[in-house]
């Protein structure tokens, strides 16, 4: 009882020595007010160090990107001087936009862009659609063999991509699909990951609406289409974002199955570009900036889905 009273008395006293003296009279030794002040100083120090750390970290993260942009805007010769005053190099000092035009011209960059967009859209749509349907069956319907089947899905999620890579390549070769978009799109659509993630989300939805719809004679597809999907927009958006970005960035598989230059997606196209212009740093960096920009755009608009997605799949993992 005494403690809150003392602190309320102390808070009314002027914040100087008299406060200390008054409080000390009551308790003798370290007082509530002093503890409070010490704690406030501690919190201030902690926040101060936290800010220093965070700002330092942020600069480390952003620095290379700034350097990328400033290099992409230099005259080609400017790069090759040993930069004694490197701290001046983060912000662009010249603006040679020609590099971007040049990069766009020396390889069919527009074509790479279109290929990447086409493949990413097909894979994303296919994966979200088929995963959502399968996840609905696993989460909301009862059928014999469901748990065993789902366990099978889970188990194959642990199989490294390297294991299936070789047989799938051979299969595609038999089908004559090497160096086609089928080879990029079809194997990427059917993943256990998407099914797993959406199932976890569907399980959290309340069943009242579903029951009501069933009583009204709604079909299973009706329930899926009119109730489950509209309620799951955040999870669907998360999967859409992840799949799109993953496909956009995927390098190894397109590298394996594509041969013809004009079919290349952006990452493979960029690597091809590097093999042609190994030391044209201004052009390489201009091309890199152009590859990253769409990703940044997607991220700015969908940031919260990233965090949600990581929590959804990471913690329940």
């Amino acid at each position, binding site marked *: 009882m005494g403690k809150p009273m003392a602190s309320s008395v102390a808070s009314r006293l002027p914040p100087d020595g008299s406060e200390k003296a008054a409080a000390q009279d009551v308790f003798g030794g370290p007082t509530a007010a002093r503890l409070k002040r010490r704690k406030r100083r501690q919190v201030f120090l902690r926040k101060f160090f936290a800010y220093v750390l965070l700002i330092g970290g942020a600069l480390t993260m952003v620095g290379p990107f700034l350097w990328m942009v400033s290099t992409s805007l230099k005259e080609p010769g400017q790069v090759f001087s040993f930069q004694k005053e490197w701290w001046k190099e983060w912000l662009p000092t010249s603006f040679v936009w020609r590099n971007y035009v040049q990069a766009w011209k020396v390889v069919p960059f527009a074509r790479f862009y279109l290929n990447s967009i086409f493949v990413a859209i097909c894979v994303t749509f296919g994966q979200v659609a088929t995963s959502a349907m399968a996840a609905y069956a696993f989460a909301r319907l009862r059928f014999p063999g469901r748990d065993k089947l789902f366990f099978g899905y889970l188990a194959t999620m642990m199989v490294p991509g390297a294991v299936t890579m070789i047989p799938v390549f051979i299969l595609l070769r038999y089908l004559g699909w090497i160096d086609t978009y089928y080879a990029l799109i079809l194997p990427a659509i059917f993943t256990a990951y998407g099914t797993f993630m959406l199932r976890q989300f569907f399980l959290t939805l309340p069943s009242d609406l579903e029951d009501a719809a069933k009583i009204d004679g709604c079909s299973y597809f009706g329930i899926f289409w009119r109730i489950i999907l509209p309620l799951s927009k955040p999870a669907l958006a998360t999967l859409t974002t992840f799949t799109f970005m993953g496909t956009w960035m995927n390098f190894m598989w397109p590298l394996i199955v594509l041969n013809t230059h004009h079919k290349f997606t952006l990452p493979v196209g960029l690597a091809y570009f590097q093999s042609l212009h190994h030391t044209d740093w201004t052009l390489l960096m201009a091309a890199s900036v152009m590859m990253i920009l769409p990703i940044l755009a997607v991220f700015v608009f969908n940031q919260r889905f990233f965090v949600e997605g990581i929590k959804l799949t990471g913690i329940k*993992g």
Partner: protein
Amino acid sequence: MKTEKAMSSSTKETIAAYGFLMPNLVGFLIFTSIPVIASLGLSFVKWDLLSPAKFVGFKNFVDLFKDPFFWKYCWNTIYLMLAIPLSMGGSLILALALNQKLKGIVLFRAVFFLPTLCSGVAIYMLWRLIYNPEFGVLNSIIASFGQLIGITLNGPYWLTDETWSKPALVIMSVWQTVGGYNMILYLAALQGVPRDLYDAAEVDGANSWQKFWAVTWPQISPTTFFIAIMSVIGGFQAGFDPAYIMTGGGPNGSTTTLIYYLYNNAFQWHHMGYAAAIAWVLFLVVLFFTIVQWRFFGKTVHY
């Protein structure tokens, strides 16, 4: 009559369920389940895609274990996983700082996520430039740091020096992952630690350091364990993209990882059976860590 009706409705449900499952299940069987089995079969044959496949029993595996390159690349793969503890420590520190109820958390989180977000060919090309011994920014920084303390410091040749190529990839990997998924998982874990545990520790007179080790650390240990295992599982399969872009697996094979070796065997030299054997060794290693995770993750790791 009632049971009959129930049966027919459950049959209907089963049919509907398999209807929903069908597209995914068929694709999954063709592109995942059957290939897993096929790759096991492949690991017992010698096949260059041109001449007919020949059954060789366990020869691929025996050859693999006698292959000095395989062991070298195993070592490379494990060495590069040095990035995991470094990155996790950094992630935890950043998450602790972010957890101080500061302004601008969303912005910081977004900025820290940038390298993970943009990971890919563009970033690897950027780091190839950063590591350039003559006009890369890293050696410029090292040189001017040397000037500051009055000695001549010359940075190493990073990607073209066998001793420095692996550390270079580790540094880049830490930069890339420190503010990514792991930090977000840690932040979520920190926010889930019950407030009253800290209050109790304060009553006992614990300072910040003691509070961290007595409360925070044990409370977030499941997350630490989860991240560590997942990173190790990922680590065994990692290393292709950066090495392909930045070093081509060199110098002298010092940045070739297992997955890179698999790629070379399968898609450069067409040793399909041998590559499948590498894939299966990789699979068994990953499986081991997955089982470890399943075993322990179910239990509460904290006390």
